[in-house]
């Protein structure tokens, strides 16, 4: 009985010490994990990346159109946009479709690079700039390749970020 009492004691002490150390580590780790998960900068960074991905995809969609799959292409234009830009596309759809059918062109676009220039997470607005290479193939002649400097405005909707304005960066306006 005496021997058992003597050996159990350090064991209990050691086990208690280990448990206390483990509890401390668990507490610290839990705090670290909470801190990492509730980082404002991280959610802002995520919104930036989401906006850029959506913006690049939308700009690419807006520069891609095949006269053979015209309806599908124009649907994708409308899906990529919101607000005024969306209304303009819906209003001008029929007239534009006629032009493309007549011209029989196929446009494909490749995003070379893109960046978010501004982001207001609370208002749900973002500005993007996209460097684009567009290839337009007409029935006759070689495909025409041009590079486009696109500036877009994105608005956050219930279905994610969508383009509310899109245009080419103007040339020569600021130089001189």
């Amino acid at each position, binding site marked *: 009985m005496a021997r058992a009492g003597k050996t159990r004691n350090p064991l209990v002490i050691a086990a208690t010490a280990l448990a206390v150390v483990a509890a401390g580590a668990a507490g610290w780790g839990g705090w670290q994990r909470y801190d990492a998960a509730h980082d404002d*900068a991280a959610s802002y960074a995520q919104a930036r990346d989401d906006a850029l991905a959506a913006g690049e995809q939308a700009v690419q969609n807006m520069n891609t159109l095949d006269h053979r799959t015209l309806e599908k292409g124009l649907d994708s234009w409308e899906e990529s946009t919101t607000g005024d830009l969306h209304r303009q596309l819906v209003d001008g759809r029929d007239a534009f479709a006629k032009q493309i059918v007549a011209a029989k062109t196929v446009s494909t676009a490749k995003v070379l690079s893109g960046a978010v220039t501004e982001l207001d997470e609370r208002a749900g607005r973002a500005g993007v700039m996209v460097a684009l290479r567009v290839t337009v193939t007409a029935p006759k002649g070689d495909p025409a390749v041009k590079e486009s400097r696109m500036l877009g405005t994105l608005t956050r909707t219930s279905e994610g970020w969508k383009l509310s304005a899109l245009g080419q960066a103007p040339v020569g306006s600021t130089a001189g």
Partner: protein
Amino acid sequence: MSTTRHLVNRRRRLATSPSRAAVAPVSDEETAAETTEETTEETTAPPGLREPETVPEQGQEPEPESDGTTPPQRRLRSRLPVLLCALTVLLGAFATWAFTSAASLRDEPARQNTALTDIARTSEVKGRIGEAVGAVFSYDYASPARSDRAAKTHLTGRAVQQHKDMLAEVRAQAPQQKLVLTTTVTASGVEYLDGDRARLLIFADQSNTRTGKDEETTFAAAMFAVDAVRRGDTWRIAAIDTFTR
């Protein structure tokens, strides 16, 4: 070894076995008793002597009420290390998960990139690189030295040679055509920013003025990306990506 104790034991023994004591010679009996007494004394002595030591030791234990340890308490006491070990394992497992999870969250690519999230750095690199692009892609036939100085100040690494190649034609033609090339950044965005490294997308306008016989200005739209590195307290262009196929 106390002699009094020996005597007491011997007397007790002699009293309990009078017949043997009578038959056997006294001297023999005495030595036999002496040896048995010694051995028994030694085997029984340690617990008897330790008895008082164990009492305070038991008192130090978590349950001090153990006067005579009852079975449930003894069971609890033997289980305590096991419970503590289990607790340690669980807490340790949680801690391991929490640390690795926190680390993986922090290592997400979105967080590594501090473009826009670090407002000060983002505007700093945009401002410096905008100035640098304007300086190194501008050229005045009247003061070519200024262009060299700008290149030395704002370029580093691979960008030095790239810039030299890009401006080679302008340099060759400039004196004859009295060429003035002016580059102005119209839009720039930080694609990536991590500490001392950044990548920017640049839209720039280039006006090319020939001030020879008849003055003529042409505008050109340029778009390219630059890799920037921070050296000391300023940003320099390290590479120029013109998206060539």
